[in-house]
């Protein structure tokens, strides 16, 4: 299902109004837009530029600068694996290799059936119980190979 331009305009308008009094509202606005649509629809950019009195290039610059903001919808599930040092020390690299092999995608890729998007994350603050992962917002500590397989089974649908 795609979201129509009119729906986007209506929802983005509401979000902009929610943040009308904020100082420097662009990031909170973008977070809300992504929460509403799963990504930042290209049609939203001119509206933001107009409302915030900045150029479309500036809005695009902000959206593309931050790793969090997606220009396309993700898969039905998002699996984030920590790639940072503390998790590396506990074998995160091997888990990442395993996940990429089983899913058949590299970092930022989405499986062909649209089930899973695999994303790297640099630290979830679970450094004393690594390797760490986040599945659809749920944190998982002390991940091992069987645990990863179970996670992947869970998001296969």
């Amino acid at each position, binding site marked *: 299902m795609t979201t129509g331009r009119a729906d986007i305009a209506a929802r983005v308008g509401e979000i902009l109004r929610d943040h009308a009094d904020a100082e*420097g509202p662009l990031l909170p606005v973008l977070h809300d837009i992504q929460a509403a649509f799963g990504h930042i629809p290209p049609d939203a950019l001119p509206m933001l530029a107009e409302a915030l009195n900045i150029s479309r290039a500036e809005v695009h610059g902000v959206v593309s600068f*931050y790793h969090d903001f997606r220009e396309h919808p993700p898969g039905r599930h998002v699996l984030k694996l920590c790639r940072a040092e503390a998790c590396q020390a506990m074998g995160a690299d091997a888990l990442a290799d395993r996940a990429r092999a089983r899913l058949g995608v590299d970092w930022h890729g989405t499986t062909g059936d649209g089930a899973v998007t695999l994303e790297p994350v640099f*630290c979830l603050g679970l450094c004393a119980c690594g390797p760490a992962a986040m599945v659809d917002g749920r944190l998982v500590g002390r991940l091992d190979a069987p645990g990863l397989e179970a996670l992947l089974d869970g998001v296969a649908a």
Partner: protein
Amino acid sequence: MRVFVPRDAAARSLGADDVAAAVAAEAARRGLDLTLVRNGSRGMVWLEPLLEVETPAGRMAFGPMTAAEVPALFDADSGAHPKALGLTEALPWMARQTRLTFARVGVTDPLSLDDYRAHGGLAGLARAREIGPEAVVAEVSVSGLRGRGGAGFPTGIKWQTVAAAAGERKYIVCNADEGDSGTFADRMLMEGDPFCLIEGMAIAGLAVGAGKGFVYIRSEYPDAIAVMQAAVQIAREDGLLGPAFDIEIRVGAGAYVCGEETSLLNSLEGKRGVVRAKPPLPALEGFMGRPTVVNNVISLATVPVILAKGAGFYRDFGLGRSRGTIPLQIAGNVRFGGLFEAAFGLTLAEIVDDIAGGTATGRPVKAVQVGGPLGAYFPRALFDTPFGYEDYAAKDGLIGHAGIVVFDDTADMLRQARFAMEFCAIESCGKCTPCRIGAVRGVETIDRIARGDAAAIPLLTDLCATMKAGSLCALGGFTPYPVMSALTHFPDDFAPLKEAAA
């Protein structure tokens, strides 16, 4: 009867929610009148989920708990429970600490202002109101508190600069963009004692004449964001926050460089998180060009205890110019990982061998990265280094935000050096050339070394010197620390052609 099961993200990642649900279900089944408190973590992550039961003798600890082990807790002799650990406060990890900043974390209900007050909360703010702004700044200066985010700049001087700056609108910005791997003190503090941070920010606002505060929390910390948002709401309803000083929670968007203060300010203003040249200092031209205090979570959360107990009390802990306590975050491949707050001065050997109990894998320790992804890798030969800002600088390292990541002897230090460059390339804001281009060239140069090209080693050294001297901020400027320390202390891993068949 009160039972505590942490709501801390680390505990939850290890099943605390299931344990909490099992406690509630079992209490209902037995018809017990039980209060379940979702506290912060005590910091003993290897024991999480750590459940505590309040008894007349004190709080008894059980861990690491599973939901299946919950029912046995309610049987006659819970002391015989297989996961019984005895009194929490008597556990060696707890008994050895000096908990000043983290005094309440894991003890109280994070979202109960009554609990906060009952455990000494708001005493610092009350004294600050009593002694007035100038005396507050003086107190913070005398305490010797330095920026706990990593830079170690004296907090009192920063506050003094903002207090003296002209301007009707000033801001307090709390840097909660704790992106360094191996660090989680900010997260634990926000999830476990959010009012402490709010109090610290209110004191800062009073000291410098700021009416508005922001907490910029990284998006990778959804639990901390939720707790802080709830705490701010509670503080408003209580009147602790209001027209005189209010706080807004802002969420980052996955850019590591936004932990750098000027990049954070740009991000807060809704711009790309590129670094600003200094001067002007944020203290004079910060958020929206106005005078702004930018302090780390731990710096701000330490202010209440300094005000409550006095600058002298705090300053009496520590060594040299590193005064007070530091929440060490012991992480990576360790037997006992977690948060350990102690006075400055512990040696790395004490931290790694003694407190952390060596590696989780049981293999020998090869290297310890102190201070996050921009910190140096220390070999065992440097384990006598005492924990302090100047002491680490003297060994070409840094304490950063006090994250300590332990690696066993399977670590390949060339690979770690390559990762440091790769990380810098991914996270560079792109403003300055040494960082933007240097990091990419760094990866390529290390790949040449890995292929056996010894001529690339001096090239790497030269590149690191350029990045260190020429980068605009610590991202490009400090990436040489992990790279050069790996090269200097573990030359065997960089030896040309590590041939197995030779």
